[in-house]
């Protein structure tokens, strides 16, 4: 491959370093109206009545909409491909504004005004009368007999309960000589912290509702808006410009459905609905907090005889992505170590917490923490070697998951482990650090993971791409797949250049999606695009090239089969002699008086495969016991994501994921008032997103396999780097102090409790 694999600069970098790149807030008309949402000040109950009289008096107010005015339609918000089978459809459990209040800061009314200040002032002047119930914040309280029902469709507050069993767990544990290890693990609510808050603006044109939004999933948002408003898909047009990060939060319909409705209320005038940072924290989506109970039965030779997991996922107020997350978690539990009998059971439970949705790696950072902490607990109890036991039991090449049929088509996991081990001198240090005393101690830890690529066969995987030849021989590439910062446009341009035979400067990625013109693709999530959309792009590029060569054959009066394209020139197959430039073909094809053809191609790829990527994190920490602080001294992630399409952007993805993993392991958590359910830390001062000064130097490395199912041998990379970091840190703290902490983040307050309990702090 000539272009794939090179560390090329991003195609959008110039616009982004000069401020030319336009994001949603940069495109709003200066004459747009401003909308503000009134959020509830209770977490559980009903809105009985509004007094809008004072709000209407505020100069500049154009409209006030309450939960009693919106269409009586419940709709789903999750960024999943739609299913035409009702039982596979997402749960439709919210209206645009809701009289039944299900979380603190639920959306109950909205004001549209001439200025932002007028909208803010008017929202504050709305008086609300509530009927209030006690907030249900924990899974335990929600599942209690007689608990207040949060959604009448789910009378016991359980959204979904699912289970699986591979082999017979009960039979397997009867085997003689098994060692049993049990553990309970817990992960916190965290959030995405994309720097561009959730925002959109909406207006009407040609009888259509146009919503310009910071979204990862324009085509899905179009469908959700149409469902929410009860209008045809074609009535909605979604435009997605550059977006300032998403990480899964914008894989959900956020401000768009309400905003689409608000513009219809004001005669189609443009309405801007821009969430503040505080609203983005408290009123969009979170990562599910989960609790796990794991039991493992290990043979004296270190092989796993039987394992079981029980998982509880706190969904919060609305279903959003719902059970898909924890189902992914318990599936991940099975796939990572697919040996022996395995059984899993999972519950997704409604509570009055903020709604949880998709977030980078979709349930796997949660199970990744629990499972890899548990493996080190097994190691601590049995004395097995921490690397050997993982290698012995982990997924191997050719594995076919009995539930999903996803097959291990390629794996470099063992080499990843070896590379990380060597980098950190893990085994040697681990032994050295086992017996330390004194207030400041060091430790090393590691964790592994596997991750799927896309959502097949759980959901549909489909993608379409369009290529149009410009008269100068350059190529326009239109995709429904979205650039969200991960570098999608760059690797797609590389794929197009590689397969068509053009140089990078001839590829124009149409970065902005507009559902009126952009081919269908479900969008950026599940680390799917370079794989699924990449397959569609390759297919389209091949068709396009064939058409181009046919026209070149017409011009050259030769068989297109004898022609190829190399670096913008038509050449003889297997010869470098340049016969004609692509530019000449392009010009002639358009303006030919005898055979005018506008060369283009559009293909859909319906993907019916999936594959696993793998990786490891190795970390060395220093624990200051009296100060209850963990300092990361050295950290490396090593990934097998198949072919690395672009080493520069791939390293950037790994660094970003590691940083998010460090935050998950050490810093980040949302805290709530136990009485009201109000989020305490809904700002970037109190939510401890790591600064540059808190971040150690990050090391990224790869083991490149070639995955036969990927378009260029590639498989998922975007999300996985965040998975193994938190458990590796936890295991390093265990190595340093002998204290096994089963909940994250390992923030000072938690360490204080754990070290005090362990007698390290007196």
């Amino acid at each position, binding site marked *: 491959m000539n272009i794939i694999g090179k560390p090329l600069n991003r195609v959008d970098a110039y616009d982004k370093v000069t401020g030319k790149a336009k994001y949603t807030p940069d495109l709003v008309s200066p004459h747009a109206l401003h909308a503000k949402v009134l959020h509830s000040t209770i977490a559980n109950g009903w809105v009985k009545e509004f007094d809008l009289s004072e709000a209407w008096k505020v100069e500049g107010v154009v409209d006030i909409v309450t939960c009693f005015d919106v269409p009586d339609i419940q709709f789903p918000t999750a960024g999943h491909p739609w299913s035409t089978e009702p039982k596979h459809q997402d749960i439709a459990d919210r209206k645009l504004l809701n009289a039944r209040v299900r979380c603190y800061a639920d959306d109950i009314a909205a004001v549209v005004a001439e200025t932002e200040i007028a909208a803010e002032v008017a929202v504050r002047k709305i008086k609300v009368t509530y009927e209030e119930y006690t907030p249900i914040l924990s899974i335990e309280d929600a599942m209690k007999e007689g608990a207040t029902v949060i959604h009448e469709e789910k009378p016991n507050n359980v959204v979904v309960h699912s289970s699986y069993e591979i082999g017979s767990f009960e039979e397997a544990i009867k085997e003689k000589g098994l060692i049993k290890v049990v553990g309970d693990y817990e992960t916190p609510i965290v959030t995405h912290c994309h720097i561009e808050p959730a925002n959109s603006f909406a207006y009407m044109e040609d009888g259509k509702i146009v919503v310009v939004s910071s979204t990862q999933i324009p085509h899905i948002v179009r469908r959700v808006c149409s469902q929410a408003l009860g209008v045809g898909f074609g009535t909605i047009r979604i435009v997605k410009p550059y977006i300032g990060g998403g990480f899964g939060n914008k894989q959900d319909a956020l401000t768009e459905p309400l905003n689409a409705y608000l513009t219809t209320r004001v005669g189609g005038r443009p309405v801007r609905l821009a969430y503040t940072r505080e609203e983005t924290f408290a009123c969009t989506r979170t990562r599910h907090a989960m609790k796990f109970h794991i039991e493992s039965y290990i043979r004296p030779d270190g092989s796993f005889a039987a394992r079981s997991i029980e998982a509880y996922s706190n969904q919060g107020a609305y279903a959003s992505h719902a059970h898909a997350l924890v189902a992914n978690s318990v599936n991940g539990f099975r796939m990572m170590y697919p040996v022996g009998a395995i059984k899993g059971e999972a519950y997704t439970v409604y509570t009055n917490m903020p709604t949880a949705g998709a977030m980078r790696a979709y349930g796997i950072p949660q199970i990744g923490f629990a499972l890899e902490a548990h493996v080190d607990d097994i190691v601590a109890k049995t004395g097995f070697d921490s690397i050997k036991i993982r290698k012995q039991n982990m997924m191997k090449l050719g594995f076919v998951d009995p539930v999903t049929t996803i097959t291990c088509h390629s794996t470099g996991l063992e080499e990843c482990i070896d590379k990380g081990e060597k980098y950190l001198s893990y085994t040697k240090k681990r032994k050295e650090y086992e017996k330390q005393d004194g207030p400041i101690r060091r430790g090393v830890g590691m964790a592994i993971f596997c991750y799927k690529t896309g959502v097949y066969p759980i959901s549909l995987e489909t993608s379409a791409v369009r290529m149009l030849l410009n008269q100068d021989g350059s190529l326009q590439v239109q995709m429904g797949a979205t650039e969200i910062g991960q570098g999608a446009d760059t690797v797609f341009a590389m794929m197009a250049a590689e397969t068509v035979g053009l140089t990078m400067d001839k590829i124009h990625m149409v970065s902005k999606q507009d559902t009126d013109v952009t081919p269908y693709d479900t969008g950026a999530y599940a680390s799917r695009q370079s794989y699924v959309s990449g397959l569609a792009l390759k297919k389209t590029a091949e068709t396009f090239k064939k058409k181009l060569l046919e026209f070149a054959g017409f011009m050259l009066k030769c068989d297109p089969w004898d022609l190829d394209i190399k670096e913008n020139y038509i050449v003889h197959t297997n010869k470098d002699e340049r016969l004609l430039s692509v530019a000449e073909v392009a010009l002639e094809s358009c303006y030919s008086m005898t055979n005018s053809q506008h060369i283009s191609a559009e293909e859909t790829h319906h993907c019916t495969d999936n594959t696993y990527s793998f990786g490891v994190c190795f970390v060395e920490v220093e624990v200051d016991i009296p100060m209850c602080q963990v300092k990361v001294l050295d950290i490396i992630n090593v990934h097998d994501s198949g072919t690395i399409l672009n080493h520069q952007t791939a390293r950037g993805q790994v660094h970003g994921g590691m940083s998010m993993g460090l935050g998950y392991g050490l810093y980040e958590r949302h805290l709530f*008032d136990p009485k009201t359910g109000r989020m*305490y830390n809904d700002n970037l001062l109190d939510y401890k997103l790591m600064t540059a000064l808190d971040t150690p130097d990050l090391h990224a490395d790869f083991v490149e396999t070639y995955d036969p199912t990927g378009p260029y041998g590639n498989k998922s990379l975007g999300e996985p780097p965040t998975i193994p970091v938190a458990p590796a840190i936890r295991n390093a703290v265990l190595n340093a102090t002998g204290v096994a902490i089963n909940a994250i983040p390992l923030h000072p*307050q938690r360490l204080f409790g754990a070290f005090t309990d362990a007698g390290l702090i007196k």
Partner: protein
Amino acid sequence: MYNFNKLYEPTSVEEALRLKKEHPEALLLAGGSDILIKIREGKLAGCDLINIYMLEELRGICLEDDGSILIRPLTSFTDVSMHPVIKGHVPVLGEAVDQIGGPQIRNIGTIGGNICNGVTSADSATTFKTYDAVLELTSMDGIRLLPYAEFNLGPGKVDLRPDEIMTGIRIPKESYENTYGHYIKYAMRRAMDIATLGCSVNVRLSKSKDSIDRLRIAFGVAAPIPIRSTHAEESAQGHALDAALLEAVAEGALADVTPRTSWRASKEFRLQLVKELARRATKAAVEKAGGTING
């Protein structure tokens, strides 16, 4: 766009004082890193403001004839930490305010705002307490000199009268000379954070550098307001430079602090930090002074 009501724009301190007398309810807008945020939150929406940020006469640092250090209130944190008088005589103050926020916040935030907010977590407060700072509070009626020790009345409450503007902070020479200080800010992040606990210590060693001549120690977030620990200071007086000194300071500190449990940290954890920060800040200050903790 900030939702405030009236904006007064004095061009001199005198005019500002007159405006403050005429409109005692109007708030002084200095760097704004506190007030503007509260306006946006709605807590102060619709308020009246007197913009003093442009008053250059309220900016700057100098060494006065009697050797005391005068810091004008609008001096930014950056300018405090970079100023040669601070670096030369009370570097610990510069080091403390250099841990506030990030560079942008240190450029806009003012030392006067840090003091007048009256919050217990103010990073400059503990060092000013340990150096017996005296505040210059000016009104149309004249200047009132108030020991900083008496300024904090409660959380967010200070002894600044409605017609007064703080026009200076003085550190007397007898308090800072021959001292070496160390500040530890304990927070969840190393930047952009509020202290979970702050501890400022300065020491003056005996001539032979083998005992404490004078030790001063103050804590932030260990009580509703920033406080000095007199027990710790007394028990350190004349003490040899040994491990027992650190324990004496830590134990003394515990006698004076009254931290509370909040969603940010528990009382017990803060008490652990009081002891540990007292030990570490004392040790660091002694070492800066050229002493060594033996044993």
